[in-house]
């Protein structure tokens, strides 16, 4: 019989437990989830993104489909009102009853609001749920000044949110310094001065007495020292308290100051009830971070499954984050409270950097650290502390600016069990195993193990572990295109551009060896097309191309081809639609609408392609380049010309962009989209280049991706006008064409670009490399030499010669066989072929 497990609460930790149980499915557990909020679990760690560019969908950690697929019963907006420990039965506020074999309390915490008179007023909020954020946004709409009460980690996040909402922002803290838990006084002072330089005001040592009506602003906060501050909005972020009221009423053991007491198995005082996450108290401690909660979820999963049980052994509370743009990290005993400990301190007031190492009395072990302004050393320092590794002879080198000597500990000294990524609990051994199984770059390993895909704090360390493992395996970390060229794609592109090389033959004779292959030929073909834009079927180039480029169509599994005419911006007249329909029906082509707002015609044979294209061109179409590593399409919504909500003309802009960049050959295919308002119906944030209309102009997004490894695009520029947008896109595309690897989409390209998004902005927006004009003129050349490849082809008898199946016979490929499905043809399967043959004979 299945064990029935009821999980109370669907925060990040509750959801982690559900994910774990589903992943290790033994078929022995029946899950029931009771969630108090109106939506399923979401990412609270990145909550402030909701004020910048994230939606609640982006933050979601799961969805209804997951629950349905795995047959997990769940309810939203429902809380457990009572637990009957003897009967093992819970009753919810809606009156439902659920029997359990094991109960898991993952009720989380609630924000502490100091009981000052006036705290319940309309524009006073807390900062924990998406509903809270919606309320804060609504208040901000009718306000100018905001105050955050609490200068801890969450308080600073909230302050960032208010700043993003364009409020004049104040931080009020009871203690004499910000982030008192994580930082020492000097680190905190530097953080404060950095925050103040951003225009925020920090008030420390202030105890709020009451909130009354204001004279200038909506409210007045009166402090016990007699001073006051006026504001329109107040957000309380003064710490969290464990949500233990249900446990209290049930009679489970609680700590003196709250929290559900658990043992090493995460069991409460009742042997059938577990508690995990921020509601749980282990050895007198509440863990207010997500990683320890995840560890508890892992512990409970192991005990529920019964195989290989593990215990909770406490968790490290070290943390690294970016607060208001400032890098801050804290490790272990940051305050140096350990008896006999000693410190190394590096302070740089010019560049605003503060670093402190706290080491053991004998100077051999690291026990704590504070980093403000530059937290690069975090990964290394954390590993030194967690694994008790002996410090180098001069520990100060770990925090001093690089002087040529290496500051890093060798990753070889880390034990196999060292946890590299704490968000997803990935060990050094798992990363090495991933490299063993064929992953060759940090990006590959990230996709394989999820390491570094949470907070990203371990990215540097991940790269070191991967590189070290590759060296161990004797794998040279080389990016040569293939055995014929000892150059990367970027280097080949530079050679072609600088030496003005026009053909593959010239290039391989001067800079390569041998005859080439199916890797370097199309790569060079693409580079030549990017710079010189000659027709791909010119005799010098035709043998370099993949079959798709040779026949200007996409080969399908049976050797037939697909035809996709360009439909710029997805706008098409009824007459053209009819023309496509007539041609498709005459040539019996299978017809399907693509995801990119155009029409795919499949099943065309080589000899039919020129005839079909002649008809399409006569009807006013041109090639859609669906066969090339090139710009595919610019998707658009209907925009301000029809839509009630549209604020800009997205269709006209999309057509303009598509016609500008059509035919541009690139390292991989390119997709773009333009949305006419923030509702984003064109899904621009999943494209290589995405444009979203604002009241003032356009927001430009870059390097998004759908497909196998979806990536949300990064916001690149805000509220820019059309000429600026076009200039940025010109430069962005040409920079990508110049520097990307073969078959590297913009998403992976950006992830591998040293300096990442900030560097890209420096190059494109601030023209740091001084190549802006050059990139624009390269692009102008491509645009100026555009020709419809199909139009040129059907007008040239020489080029048409190859569009026949046999050189010495007029018949088509006799091997093709089709069957009809839903009124259209499709290739016959192997079994169907045999049947067709039997019928024929």
């Amino acid at each position, binding site marked *: 019989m299945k064990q029935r497990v009821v999980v109370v609460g669907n925060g990040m930790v509750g959801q982690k437990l559900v994910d774990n149980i589903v992943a290790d499915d033994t078929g022995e557990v029946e899950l029931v989830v009771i969630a108090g909020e109106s939506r399923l679990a979401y990412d609270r760690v990145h909550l402030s993104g909701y004020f910048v560019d994230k939606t609640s969908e982006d933050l979601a950690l799961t969805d209804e489909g997951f629950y349905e697929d795995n047959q997990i019963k769940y309810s939203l907006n429902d809380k457990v009102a009572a637990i009957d420990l003897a009967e093992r039965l819970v009753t919810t506020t809606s009156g439902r009853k659920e029997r359990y074999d094991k109960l898991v309390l993952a009720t989380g915490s609630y924000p502490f609001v100091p009981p000052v008179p006036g705290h319940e007023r309309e524009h006073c909020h807390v900062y924990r749920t998406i509903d809270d954020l919606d309320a804060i946004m609504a208040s901000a709409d009718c306000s100018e000044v905001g105050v955050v009460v609490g200068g801890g980690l969450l308080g600073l996040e909230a302050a960032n949110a208010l700043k993003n909402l364009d409020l004049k922002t104040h931080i009020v803290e009871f203690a004499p310094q910000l982030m008192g838990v994580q930082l020492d006084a000097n680190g905190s002072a530097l953080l404060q001065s950095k925050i103040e330089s951003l225009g925020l005001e920090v008030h420390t040592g202030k105890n709020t007495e009451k909130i009354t009506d204001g004279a200038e602003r909506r409210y007045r906060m009166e402090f016990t020292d007699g001073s006051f501050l006026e504001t329109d909005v107040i957000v309380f972020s003064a710490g969290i308290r464990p949500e233990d009221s249900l446990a209290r009423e049930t009679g489970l053991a609680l700590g003196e100051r709250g929290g559900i007491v658990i043992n090493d198995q995460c069991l409460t005082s009742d042997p059938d009830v577990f508690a995990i996450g921020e509601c749980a108290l282990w050895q007198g401690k509440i863990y207010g971070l997500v990683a320890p909660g995840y560890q508890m979820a892992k512990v409970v999963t192991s005990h529920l499954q019964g195989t290989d049980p593990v215990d909770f052994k406490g968790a490290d509370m070290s943390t690294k984050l970016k607060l208001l743009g400032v890098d801050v990290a804290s490790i272990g005993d940051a305050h140096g409270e350990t008896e006999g400990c000693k410190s190394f301190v590096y302070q740089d007031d010019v560049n605003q950097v503060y670093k402190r190492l706290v080491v053991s009395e004998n100077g051999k072990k690291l026990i704590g650290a504070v980093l403000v302004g530059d937290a690069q050393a975090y990964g290394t320092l954390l590993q030194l502390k967690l694994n008790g590794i002996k410090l180098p002879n001069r520990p100060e080198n770990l925090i001093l600016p690089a002087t040529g000597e290496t500051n890093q500990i060798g990753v070889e000294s880390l034990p196999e069990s060292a946890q590299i990524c704490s968000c997803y609990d990935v060990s050094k051994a798992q990363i090495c195993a991933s490299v063993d199984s064929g992953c060759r770059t940090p990006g590959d390993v990230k996709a394989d193990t999820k390491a570094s895909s949470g907070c990203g704090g371990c990215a540097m360390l991940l790269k070191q572990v991967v590189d070290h493992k590759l060296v161990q395996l004797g794998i040279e970390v080389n990016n040569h295109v293939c055995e014929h060229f000892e150059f990367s794609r970027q280097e080949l592109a530079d050679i072609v551009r600088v030496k003005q090389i026009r053909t593959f033959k010239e290039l391989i004779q001067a800079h390569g060896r041998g005859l080439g292959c*199916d890797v370097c*030929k199309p790569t060079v073909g693409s580079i030549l097309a990017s710079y010189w834009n000659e027709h791909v079927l010119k005799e010098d180039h*035709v*043998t370099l191309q993949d079959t798709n480029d040779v026949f200007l169509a996409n*080969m399908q*599994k049976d*050797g037939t081809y697909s035809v996709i005419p360009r439909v710029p911006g997805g706008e098409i007249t009824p007459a053209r639609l009819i023309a496509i329909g007539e041609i498709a029906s005459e040539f019996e082509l299978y017809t399907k609408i693509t995801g990119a707002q155009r029409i795919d015609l499949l099943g065309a044979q080589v000899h039919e392609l020129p005839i079909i294209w002649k008809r399409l061109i006569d009807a006013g179409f041109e090639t859609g380049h669906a066969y090339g590593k090139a710009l595919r399409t610019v998707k658009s919504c209907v925009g301000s010309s029809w839509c009630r909500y549209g604020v800009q003309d997205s269709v006209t802009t999309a057509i303009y962009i598509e016609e500008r960049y059509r035919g541009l050959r690139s390292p991989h295919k390119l997709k773009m989209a333009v949305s006419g308002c923030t509702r984003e119906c064109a899904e621009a944030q999943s494209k290589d280049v995405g444009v979203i209309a604002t009241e003032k102009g356009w927001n430009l997004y870059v390097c998004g991706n759908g497909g196998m490894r979806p990536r949300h695009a990064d916001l690149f520029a805000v509220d820019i006008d059309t000429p600026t947008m076009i200039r940025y896109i010109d430069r962005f595309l040409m920079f990508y064409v110049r520097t990307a690897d073969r078959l590297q989409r913009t998403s992976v390209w950006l992830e591998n670009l040293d300096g990442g998004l900030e560097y890209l902005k420096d190059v494109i927006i601030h023209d740091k490399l001084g190549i802006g004009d050059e990139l624009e003129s390269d692009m102008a050349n491509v645009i100026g030499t555009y020709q419809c490849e199909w139009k040129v082809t059907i007008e040239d008898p020489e080029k048409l010669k*190859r569009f026949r199946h046999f050189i010495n016979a007029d018949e088509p490929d006799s091997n093709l066989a089709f069957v009809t499905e839903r009124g259209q043809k499709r290739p016959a399967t192997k079994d169907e072929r045999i049947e067709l043959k039997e019928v024929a004979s």
Partner: protein
Amino acid sequence: MSAWTDICRVSDLVPDSGICALYKGEQVAIFKFETERRVFAVSNFDPIGEANVMSRGILGTLGTDTVVASPLYKQHFCLETGRCLEDENQWLKTYPVRVHRGQIQLREGLPVPEQTA
């Protein structure tokens, strides 16, 4: 041994690429290497992708082998022996081929070596 059959003129082939010929009911892919002044002929049927497409593959060299890459799934086949470099159980039938008085000529194909699987 069968006689040589005329297929087409050498000038019908674009250097460093392939064409497909119909020879006694069989589809044969013929390739011309410009630099090596050599011609190769193998079966046009891709045994892995199961379609008549080999003549549309890209030519090249890998180590010491002269190869054509399948346009479907990119496996490489040695043009001299027909052997698949990625899967030793897959072969292309090879055909004797020559250039004679400006004509490409074919003779009957050689049997595929016994499969070792």
